[in-house]
């Protein structure tokens, strides 16, 4: 276990006393800046989210070593929402109302974000969300540092269509909102590019699905129709290991039927013997194998922090790296951690990413990212085979969905609206008036 600076029993007590109004107001000047970390450390999502907690703690440590922020030290406040969605809302409330943190880094699953969203909006907090997601959302209080579908799914499909010559598509996903939305967008996109109904197969499986025999066999049959076939996988979490094992055993070779995954990164591959999977693809905005000095520095710091020579980095970690630096930059710019001022200051802030370029915060609270396609190697890393020539700006509202193609998001004054309908000329929801 990584030594963490956050065993907080005494501090927790102090904090609750503080909230009870015992503390003297004179202390306020020297108070550290509190950074809330809202990632599951137990339950099903601990596998993915624990490293993100460690990442933020590492970033905080580094920032403190460099003198903190605005002359104040940073302090991590870690809670465990335990992969329990209502608990996410409760813990977010605890962080904002009780601990009075200045910013929250957290969440992985869409449902946990949806659960936290009303709380952050009500208590006017700041949330940095680091995972690729389905889009269709833009909150005044949330900053999306992961990829929107146009920063991951669409470029990946373009690559397969144009560079690999794929004509037949299997869209396989876990049955929840991210795969559903992504597949809806992809289906519309593919049909727009002349792919027929018969050449698209859509398949949904439950969470943690472990018996893939039938589905893999179906994919195999689907792929033997004389057209180049590819699988676009939005299969989530634990279900991937048995899925890839079954692929290997039923002899589905990347040269015949490549699988491009949107939820499988280096972290997930540490649990898989990748030798049979060489050549299958993933689309992300960062790979650990990116050959830049900033990336190697980040990896070295991470290895040192975890004390594990084999420790891997992944895309959501980079997203936190970017998000954290953007927030720090915005705080510096605003000269305060006051949420409203940071929120305004952060738009347009641009910080280096780990792939040798810059990430900028857009007015819709999404960021610009390069899109990389990587092939799995036998050492559990990805070899980058293609990348977009420049960065792509995240699109909160997909152009390929009926309900959202007329919506835009711009949180700058005077529009200040997350879902402005350009046809009706009005701010759609009841939120921002």
């Amino acid at each position, binding site marked *: 276990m990584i030594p963490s600076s956050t065993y907080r029993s005494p501090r927790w007590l102090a904090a609750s006393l503080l909230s009870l109004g015992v503390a003297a107001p004179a202390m306020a000047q020297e108070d550290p800046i509190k950074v809330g970390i809202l990632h599951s450390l137990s339950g099903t999502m601990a596998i993915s989210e*624990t490293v993100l907690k460690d990442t933020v703690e590492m970033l905080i440590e580094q920032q403190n070593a460099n003198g903190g922020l605005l002359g104040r030290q940073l302090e991590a406040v870690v809670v465990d929402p335990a992969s329990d969605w209502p608990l996410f809302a409760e813990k977010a409330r605890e962080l904002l109302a009780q601990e009075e943190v200045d910013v929250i880094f957290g969440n992985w699953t869409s449902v946990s974000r949806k659960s936290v969203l009303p709380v952050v909006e009500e208590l006017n907090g700041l949330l940095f969300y680091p995972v690729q997601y389905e889009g269709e959302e833009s909150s005044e209080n949330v900053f999306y540092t992961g990829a929107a579908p146009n920063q991951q799914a669409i470029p990946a499909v373009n690559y397969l269509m144009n560079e690999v010559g794929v004509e037949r598509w299997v869209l396989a996903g876990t049955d929840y909102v991210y795969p559903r939305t992504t597949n809806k967008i992809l289906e519309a996109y593919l049909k727009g590019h002349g792919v027929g109904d018969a050449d698209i197969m859509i398949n949904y499986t439950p969470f943690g699905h472990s018996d893939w025999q039938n589905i893999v066999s179906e994919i195999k049959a689907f792929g033997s129709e*004389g057209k180049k076939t590819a699988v676009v996988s939005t299969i989530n979490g634990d279900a991937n290991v048995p899925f890839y094992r079954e692929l290997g055993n039923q002899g589905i070779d990347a040269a015949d039927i490549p699988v491009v995954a949107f939820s499988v990164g280096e972290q997930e591959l540490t649990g898989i013997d990748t030798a049979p999977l060489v050549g299958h693809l993933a689309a992300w905005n960062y790979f650990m194998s990116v050959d830049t000095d900033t990336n190697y520095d980040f990896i070295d710091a991470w290895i040192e922090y975890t004390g594990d020579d084999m420790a891997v980095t992944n895309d959501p970690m980079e997203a936190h790296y970017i998000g954290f630096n953007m927030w720090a930059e915005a705080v510096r710019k605003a000269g305060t951690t006051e949420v409203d001022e940071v929120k305004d200051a952060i738009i347009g802030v641009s910080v280096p990413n780990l792939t040798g370029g810059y990430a900028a915060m857009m007015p819709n609270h999404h960021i610009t990212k390069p899109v990389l396609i990587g092939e799995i190697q036998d050492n559990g890393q990805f070899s980058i085979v293609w990348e977009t020539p420049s960065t792509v700006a995240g699109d909160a509202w997909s152009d390929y969905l009926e309900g959202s193609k007329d919506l835009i998001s711009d949180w700058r004054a005077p529009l200040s609206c997350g879902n402005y309908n350009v046809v009706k000329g009005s701010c759609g929801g009841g939120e921002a008036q």
Partner: protein
Amino acid sequence: MKIPPCLRRLLALCLLACLPLTAQAQEDDGQSLLASLDAASYAQMGGAIEAIVDSGDPRSRDWLEALLGGKLQRHKESGRFVVVLENRGRNWPVVDALTGEDLGEMSRRELDRIGINNSLRGQLQSVLAVLDLRVDDVGARREAARDLLGQVDEAMVAPLQDLLEAEGDAEVARLLAQGLAIHRLEQGQVAAVDVLAGSLNGEVRSALSSAARSDDPALAEAAEAALAGIDQKLRLNRGLETLYFGLSLGSVLVLAAIGLAITFGVMGVINMAHGELMMLGAYTTWAMQQLLPGQPGLALLLAIPAGFLVAALAGIAIERGVIQFLKGRPLETLLATFGVSLILQQLVRTVISPLNRTVVTPEWMSGSLMINEGLSLTLNRLYVLGFAMLVFAGLMLVMRRTRLGLEVRAVTQNRAMARAMGIRATRVDIMTFALGSGVAGLAGVALSQLTNVGPNLGQNYIIDSFMVVVFGGVGNLWGTLVAGLSLGVINQVLEPWAGAVLAKILVLVFIILFIQKRPRGLFPQKGRAAEG
């Protein structure tokens, strides 16, 4: 995918058994050959590979293999080409690509990998496959010939024809003939359909499907007819395959449930930590593979007794530490063991890691056993199926033929009477619980070959395990076997028709309704013990 000219030339070289060029250490040539490989884009890499092949350099094959494995790299500073021997961790051991000189370890920061993509990988693979067509090992030749299906083009026809005539093995000959026929089919020759009709191979089916969409009505018709025949056979195979899938899923359920059938069915302990005992078995497999690097197979075999032992010891600890205080309060065991399961999960997260661990599948368990070209049985699942049956048979033997089994049955049926007869009931309790836990450990060892090895492993199977035991009839090992296998088959038969989610729901509804019909499961326990 077509084989580019360069590779064809290599083929020609090999097929016609040209003498290899004199082996000379041409430092400069090698360096420039590799340099051109590095500088090029994917599209140009074909040309660079061509240059390598044309050079006839004796090291070409090694280079190409290293390139295929992503091991060919360039030292950034010196521009020297190296082959990486082991590419995990921060620093990698490397040798010089040209001289083979050992260069010690280099940081990954200093190296630049020469990347390839899937299409280049495919080309390289078929080059190597063709080389394999000339080896003595029949198995390798068959493999190579199968790989060539759908890859044959004009330049290869003549040499392959020669090889076909010289080929002694009927299977290789058949495959080569099919490969050539696919090529002719692509040229639009209707006669080729006859050679291909009846083959269940996916590439053949693919080629025929393409032909069936052709503009030539005669060709389309012939291909259509051949396809219809193939599909007929495939349907039968598909049925058999589904049955196999079902039995395989069933065997996993049986393995997961059979230990529970002992602790829960025989002893009446509602052991919510059963899943975590399986998890311990799976982690033992991982630990064994860490202890014996490079020998995953041996480690797996040793993990079988080790996994049993670890889980059994954990079981004894649970029995002594918790369950012995809850005699006669079976429902409270649920509470206490649920606590134990939380502790064990967190223990693994804290001590080992919250991340999944990699358990390697040994060579002999990878891939599949080909019954015919339309039906292959995946080997890992076949082994698990066999293993499940062995465990079951072993358990039956213990319960029916050993003194322990006799005592267990005696204590279960009438504890007081058994004690009066001189059976040490406490000892029997410990042994029974250890046995059930050990079997859970065995299940974990098997599951490590199928699914994630992580802290959540147990949680994923506990509900299913209870379902199987109850469906089969508590206290009846045969019931557990039949229940597990039949639920597996029902699930897999429903799945293609209803989808994975709905299939699972339907199975659950089926269990609920079945219990209405037979309130004590498939094989109800008879007699007084049933009331207990």
